[in-house]
């Protein structure tokens, strides 16, 4: 697996416990509209991702991340 594929796999695993509605996840899945996460769920999920990758995802950056694929791309940039 490439680095990006690994990051995607890890991201999917981290989404699972928060995916209460059992939505099928693809790179195009949108956090707000498709997963219907509220602000507290987003905070908890972001904290989980931040801890896993030891990065900081500011609210400014969160505002630019709409889909799962965009999160994976952002994580690849933050890790670099």
């Amino acid at each position, binding site marked *: 697996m490439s680095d990006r594929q690994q990051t995607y796999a890890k991201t999917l695993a981290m989404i699972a416990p928060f995916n209460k509605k059992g939505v099928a996840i693809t790179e195009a899945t949108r956090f707000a509209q498709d997963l219907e996460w509220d602000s507290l769920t987003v905070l908890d999920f972001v904290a989980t991702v931040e801890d896993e990758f030891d990065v900081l995802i*500011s609210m400014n950056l969160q505002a630019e991340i709409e889909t799962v694929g965009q999160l994976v791309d952002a994580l690849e940039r933050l890790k670099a």
Partner: protein
Amino acid sequence: MSDLFAKFDPVIEIREQLLATGRTDPFNLVMEKVESPTVAICNGKRTILLGTYNYMGMTFDPDVIAAGKKALDEFGSGTTGSRVLNGTYVGHRACEEALKDFYAMDHAMVFSTGYQANLGIISTLAGKDDYIVLDIDSHASIYDGCALGNAQIVPFRHNDIDALEKRLKRIPEGAGKLVVLEGVYSMLGDIAPLKEMVAVSKANGAMVLVDEAHSMGFIGEHGRGVAEAQGIIDDVDFIIGTFSKSVGTVGGFCVSNHPKFEILRLVCRPYVFTASLPPSVVATAATSIRKLANSADKRAHLWENSKRLHAGLRQLGFTLGTDEPQSAIIAVIMPDLETGAAMWEALLNEGLYVNLARPPATPANMTLLRCSLCALHSADQVGEILAMFAAAGRATGCID
């Protein structure tokens, strides 16, 4: 033409649903007469006020009123100008002197509202490439201060010391850091572990701003707030406060010991580009602040009120925001907005006003009946309040 109001349709719908139940609109109450800090006439009915943040009951203090009247006579109804142009009168300076004495700090800057104090200080202090680390449950004025500036915004879970520390450690080397905390969080009335949080912030090279809006005048030996009560006020770089709670008028401020603090008067846009407070307002504020410094007896009585209401409501079977009373705010947690609105209306019919707080202002989408006590609530009034909660709670099925 697209209707720019379309984005408000979900809010309109929730509101219409609520009003369709026949409930009194909880966000449209008119105070017809105000008799004292604790009693007003609403819908022609004598109503005990339990949702005004008038913690120390200074709004009708004779010295405060006299100072306001004198300033109105001598300096007119308004300044019609910015603090940095024609809007600084001797009263504004006197008010800042009163704040410096009250907090024992070197600098004080008075804004036209508490909202503008947070807006101005936060947006001005943290610039591009700086980081603001803030509690997720921060007040709207703190978030708006973040939005007005260009800094990177990093929230952490409410009152979670480890979460704060982790985020501070991940901020790039050399970046400016501002940690924004509140002494009392106004929705649930809980206090912050400031001692630990300020220590963690300092250890990681951050400056710390604490909003003490809901603790001034009441918490701490001299009423300086939670930072004073926890013994770390000297480690706090900036304290933000308001005149619209314990002080009993309107206005906001920031106090600090930073040697370069005064430059903010020239670079802080929400300070510069607005008219200063009217002379009567700063005169009432200064008089009130000086009296608050010596109000230990009132502070003790307010604690008594808070403890008694908390214990009484719990005994009646209500679910409260905190296990122990931590401030002058007691939040009663309602199961949903509809029940909350019914209970709010039942209380009003009994003759009691509390705040109905609902999402998005509340944490975790809670509906709250927020009670804020006053040092001038008598023991009899607290008894009346508990009786009204009992009656309204039973009528609406909130309690057995």
